[in-house]
């Protein structure tokens, strides 16, 4: 799980152009949206694309995204639960 989390952090930084951040500076338990990293709606959509492209997991609505994308950890758990990581 920790390996998956580390991998995810790197992928998130790349996909969201968080150029000024390092994986170490991302807290996997912190909220991704509103507080924490303060990502916006377009970032959420990009993470949905990431899940499909890299892990073959499809989220069909932005609402379903809200639970899965709560934090890096919840994303990793979702991937594991679907046997993809």
């Amino acid at each position, binding site marked *: 799980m920790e390996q998956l989390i580390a991998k995810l952090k790197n992928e998130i930084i790349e996909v969201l152009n968080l150029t000024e951040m390092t994986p170490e500076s991302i807290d996997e338990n912190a909220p991704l949206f509103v507080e924490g990293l303060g990502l916006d709606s377009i970032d959420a959509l*990009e993470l949905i*694309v990431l899940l499909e492209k890299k892990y073959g997991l499809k989220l069909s609505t932005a609402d379903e995204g809200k639970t899965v994308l709560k934090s890096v950890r919840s994303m990793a758990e979702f991937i594991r639960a679907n046997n993809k990581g």
Partner: protein
Amino acid sequence: MDNRSIISSYCIIRNKQVNLNGSLFYSGHEEQPAGFFLELYKHCSMNYPKFHKMDTLCRLGFLASELMLSRKKLNERYRGEDIGLILYNAAASMESDKAHQKSISSRDSYFPSPSVFVYTLANIVIGEICIRNKFFGESTFFIEKKFNPSLIHQYVGDLMARDTVQCCLTGWLEMDGDHYDGVLYLIEKSTPDNHGIVIFEPEKLSQIYLQGT
């Protein structure tokens, strides 16, 4: 036409150089536009993470406006809704258009990126500048074959003369392949306090545009 407006500041970004109000502000190394814009961003120690999400057209516009507006304190002198933004270019949002088109070209590898699509409109750069600076005034983006100082003077002059805006950012922001050409002007009303005045007229817009070409 309207001789009550002045060009109070300008910024030219082209050929790896930045000209700010007639002085060479920065001369860089990176050949590719994205590389040079990042180099400039870092050189100026700008702190705006959203910069990295922008496409190259928006980065060009953002950088030119940040440099042109530094120390101008517009928000202290004008209400947000009185500041307008009128921009022009020929290639519209070509770079993002190409990137988006590429991402949907193959049925086998079909992953359109929402953050790329968001930039497939020429006027998003206006949005980025307004979000950054809290400008709420009128804005428009024109597609023109080439830089046209008479058109700029006529349109912006009209907005200034009729007090639709009290101050206006305007200019040419072209981003096409490896070619970039950013020329932004700040137009304000002439007052007894303005010193070293450059009158807002087509000849002056042209003269400035041609500097270093």
